[in-house]
């Protein structure tokens, strides 16, 4: 059976990057496919919106200064054979004191821990990177140390967001600067983000419904009549800049002031299909509870999952679960000090626990999901020296 080259081109553009690299050794014409811009664009678009296949595991920000193997990449169980990234790129990132901040559709947003102003987008598969020029106004020590970064990819462009505290007394306000990858320019949103009285968890942004969503912390530093007594979600509309508060489910708020309580919000379901939404994960007293936002307008939550860590049958005796995230809108991924596990939340794999990997990233490691594609790093892209 023989297919013409242009049909083989189409077939291969549906493959994950790792398979494409492997099949370069089939024959000369196929080895050249991935060098063509059109192929890279097709492959990127074909894989847009597909599930992430790997996880970046890194020590938490503070520990990362003192640990040598800083950036680990592990495949999710289903994708063990067909996903990954070149080891030499991972070593390069690790050795150069790089911290991965975010990843989307094959692009990885990083900054240099020792020199935080060095921010760049890279693609480990194409070994290319593009530095993000930080505006002068942001480069002063104070502002930059507190700047919060986010990455969002659309089909043909990417945006990097930096939220900087305007340092106004009240109300607290964050200026939102947006870098547009295709044009290579920074634009500032007219209206800043007003997070209310509480500190926001900027490490876990959720892009949904045209807005960025952040959950607040839940420390007990407000008194009852204050509107910020209970923790909340604040959304920031990326079109018109309005900030809107969303309530959390009552059961989530109960006991949230407890020191072991940790909450996070994530994308739920597939962004592409109409059932996509937000979900809330609460880890308190070694029990996971998950709710999803059934109706956005009326803020009505539905509980979908509750399980004690002890009941999960994990290998460790010392069950200190520290960090967690939701991957691909349906998989709860969490880490102990030694291992990373997943727990299914969809019908097919509900409550199925799987070990993903062991890790060397200490307690409270950061988990960021990744999909290997040939996506271009945009203008100013150069080859990484590795």
């Amino acid at each position: 059976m023989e297919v013409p080259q242009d049909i083989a081109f189409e077939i291969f553009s549906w493959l994950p990057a790792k398979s494409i690299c492997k099949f370069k050794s089939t024959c000369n014409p196929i080895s050249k496919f991935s060098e063509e811009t059109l192929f890279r664009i097709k492959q990127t678009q074909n894989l847009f919106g597909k599930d992430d296949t790997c996880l970046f595991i890194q020590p938490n920000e503070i520990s990362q200064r003192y640990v040598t193997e800083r950036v680990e990449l592990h495949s999710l169980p289903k994708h063990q054979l067909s996903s990954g990234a070149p080891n030499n790129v991972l070593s390069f990132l690790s050795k150069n004191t790089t911290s991965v901040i975010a990843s989307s559709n094959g692009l990885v947003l990083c900054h240099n821990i020792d020199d935080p102003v060095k921010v760049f987008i890279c693609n480990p598969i194409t070994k290319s990177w593009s530095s993000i020029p930080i505006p002068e106004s942001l480069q002063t020590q104070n502002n930059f140390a507190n700047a919060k970064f986010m990455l969002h990819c659309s089909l043909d462009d990417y945006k990097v967001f930096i939220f900087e505290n305007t340092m106004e007394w009240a109300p607290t306000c964050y200026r939102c600067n947006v870098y547009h990858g295709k044009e290579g320019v920074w634009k500032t949103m007219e209206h800043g983000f007003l997070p209310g009285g509480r500190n926001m968890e900027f490490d876990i942004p959720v892009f949904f419904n045209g807005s960025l969503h952040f959950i607040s912390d839940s420390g007990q530093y407000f008194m009852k009549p204050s509107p910020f007594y209970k923790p909340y979600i604040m959304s920031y509309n990326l079109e018109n800049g309005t900030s809107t508060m969303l309530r959390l489910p009552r059961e989530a708020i109960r006991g949230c002031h407890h020191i072991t309580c940790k909450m996070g919000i994530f994308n739920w379901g597939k962004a592409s299909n109409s059932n996509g939404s937000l979900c809330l994960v609460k880890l308190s007293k070694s029990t996971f509870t998950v709710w999803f936002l059934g109706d956005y307008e009326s803020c009505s939550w539905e509980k979908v999952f509750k399980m004690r860590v002890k009941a999960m049958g994990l290998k460790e005796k010392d069950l200190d679960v520290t960090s967690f995230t939701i991957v691909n809108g349906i998989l709860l991924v969490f880490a102990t000090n030694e291992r990373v596990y997943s727990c299914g939340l969809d019908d097919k794999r509900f409550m199925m626990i799987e070990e993903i990997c062991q890790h060397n990233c200490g307690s409270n490691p950061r988990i960021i999901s990744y999909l290997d594609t040939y996506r271009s790093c945009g203008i100013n892209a150069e080859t990484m020296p590795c």
Partner: protein
Amino acid sequence: MAEEKSQASSSKMLTLKASDGVLFEVELNIAKEMKTVQAYIDDCEDIETIPIPNVLGKHLAIVIEYIKKTNEEYDAEFEKQWNMDDLQLLLLAANYLNISGLQECLCKAIAKRIENKSPEYVRKVFNIENDHSPEEEAKLRKEYKWAFEGVDKD
């Protein structure tokens, strides 16, 4: 007048003749999904039987059924019934007849089946000759060593 004409044409039947002589009567709106057939109709208005020289009866039957039934659920189950040879022949048919939805569905399915296999397997399946020199091939295997971790047995 125009309304009557379109009503008549939507229930008009067309005959497609596969390469092995098998005949298929299909409704015009089904045939129109095959852009190659559409172009044929546009060129010669009063045609009754259209020859499809590159596609066997058995594959044309499958293609016609696909057009009638395609939806998300059907597409997800569609490719599971066919072996690799049939998938490729169906893809060539879909390509010749210019049916974009079916082409995409088949490309995705073939890609899924080969993604974890070895380069040797892929050469066999697509009947590809290895035109790399031994040195070139060794160089590629070394450079992309990480991509060979975890390959399905053929």
